[in-house]
């Protein structure tokens, strides 16, 4: 089953008097449990694609389905609910809430979805352990390295057991080893939990991990290839 499906999606940005196309008729489907990436040069529309998939933005034309539901028809509140229940985000700049500890950051989506105190604690501990940060639970973002922060972000993205995790350049601000380590963690979580991961990246370090690479050029899908050496 497709977790995300896009049909002839376009997105134009109005910059002053000029309309700039970011996406021009994208057809794409992401299957449940996939671990794949969209790549392309800067300005090719990767981030826009991810934002549309994540219901952070609405397309100018075309349709986006998440778990079969047409999300282009939803209002802001409904989209917020959908994000809360179905989608986890990982951003390039880690995007942890400053001042809150690792524990509290991971707990935040659970707080928002109204999970019970006991359940929250159990889940947060489980996730921090999964990303190897049990001992850093009470550190704030400014007390952690970039890699650690990104691992907290992964834990947070997974906290509500979303159907899909969307990650925008998750390794861009990390050095070689750390980037690889972060990818390994996500790969493992993908296998263990079956959560779909979809990346937007131009980092070649990501590619060996993914099962499928979609190349975006000038707002259109230029290539869509499964990796023969991957088992998905």
């Amino acid at each position: 089953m497709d977790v995300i499906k896009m049909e002839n999606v376009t997105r134009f940005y109005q910059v002053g008097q000029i309309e700039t196309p970011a996406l021009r008729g994208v057809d794409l489907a992401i299957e449940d449990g996939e671990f794949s990436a969209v790549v392309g040069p800067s300005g090719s529309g990767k981030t826009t694609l991810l934002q549309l998939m994540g219901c952070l933005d609405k397309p100018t034309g075309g349709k986006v389905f998440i778990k079969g539901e047409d999300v282009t028809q939803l209002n802001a509140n409904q989209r917020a609910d959908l994000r809360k229940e179905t989608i986890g985000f990982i951003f390039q700049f880690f995007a942890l809430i400053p001042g809150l500890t690792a524990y509290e950051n991971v707990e935040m989506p659970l707080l928002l979805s109204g999970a019970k105190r006991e359940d929250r604690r159990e889940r947060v501990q489980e996730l921090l352990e999964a990303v190897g940060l049990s001992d850093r639970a009470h550190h704030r973002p400014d007390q952690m390295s970039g890699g650690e922060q990104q691992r907290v972000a992964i834990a947070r993205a997974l906290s509500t057991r979303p159907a899909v995790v969307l990650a925008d350049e998750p390794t861009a601000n990390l050095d070689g080893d750390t980037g690889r380590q972060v990818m390994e963690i996500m790969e493992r979580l993908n296998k263990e939990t079956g959560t779909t991961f979809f990346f937007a990246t131009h980092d070649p370090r990501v590619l060996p991990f993914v099962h499928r690479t979609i190349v975006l050029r000038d707002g259109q899908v230029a290539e869509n290839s499964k990796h023969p050496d991957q088992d998905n």
Partner: protein
Amino acid sequence: MLRLWRIAIRDLVRNKRRSGLTLIAIALGLALVIALHALEIGAMEGSIDNNIRVQSGHVQMRADSYEEDKVSLKWEDLLEDSQLLVSQAMSLPQVQGAAPVLWASGILSTVEDATGVRVYGIDPQAETSATFREDLEGDFLKPDDRGGVLISKRLANNLELAIGNKISLLINTSGEQPDETTFTIRGLYDTGLPAFDELTVFLPLAKAQTFTQVGDRASAVVVLLHEQDDADVVAAALNTPGLTVKTWRDLNQLMLQTMESSMGILYFFYLIILAIVAVVVSNTLLMSVFERTREMGILAALGLKGRQIMTMFMLESAILGALGVLIGVILGSLGTYYLATVGIHIGDMASEVSADMSYGETMYASFQWSATAILSVVCWVITMLASLYPAWFATRKEPIDALRAF
């Protein structure tokens, strides 16, 4: 809602400096308003108390035709049987003291100087005269003293007079004939009310009556009560045909009205102070919204809705407002306590402020729970109103714009 509470509290705790500054603004603003209000109420209550003490009493009985402004000495304007009225009043359990008084206007002259005065004939032994014995220098008047007068320290100072000096009093008698007599200063009184002291000289009632040729008539019978609130009951009990019975409220009407209108101006001041607090709160929250744009984007990406973001900000200011009000009430009460015990010395300004107002030389504050409660609620509501715009503004950001703002 509970979740938003937790998030709001977390935000406040982690932004200690910002929360602290806002708290200080709310607390200081409210404390200032509470202390100002208490001082004003205290000054006004004090002023009325003073006036009751030295002038009006709690209840006054007068002849129907007596007009306060004219200080008439015509027989028909005076009370015929004042002693009977006094004993009537004294028979009531609420009454602390009652005595006849006689008022006349005159001119006090020394060898070098002269000034207009009000001649106040009192029963020296009456309870109602006790207040003039306080802070007395020299001797008080005796009932049968025919040549003694009491003037204030202030007047003595102005006219360079001392105990034992002679002064001459010129008055218009009941028959509209001027009469002049020389008196010896027996003592110097001090009520602490400059406006009263500068104008008033005391004679024993008997001497005042013969001097003004009114027989044994009196301008009024002044009644003091144990409890101010009993004035209406006592006034009703003393009401007889041919008499006008007035309570301290009637007698201080002008003062009460002046006070009410000056309270109006003060409320306006309070609003200005609280508006400044509102601007500070609004500004701090708006800064906080700008500062947390990216954070709002993250929270929105995590599924927080616009109205939840708004609620979160409102909750933050509700908590800040409540804490600020609490601290403000404590600070304001401490300030009021200081002003109520030590007071503010205004000295001679008291008589310059207004001759009609019996302001003492020191203003004392008077704490009122009801006013403090109302001001606190108003302050809290204003804080909430001030947070509306920033909170609304925070919801205007689309998550994607908010994330891009980084």
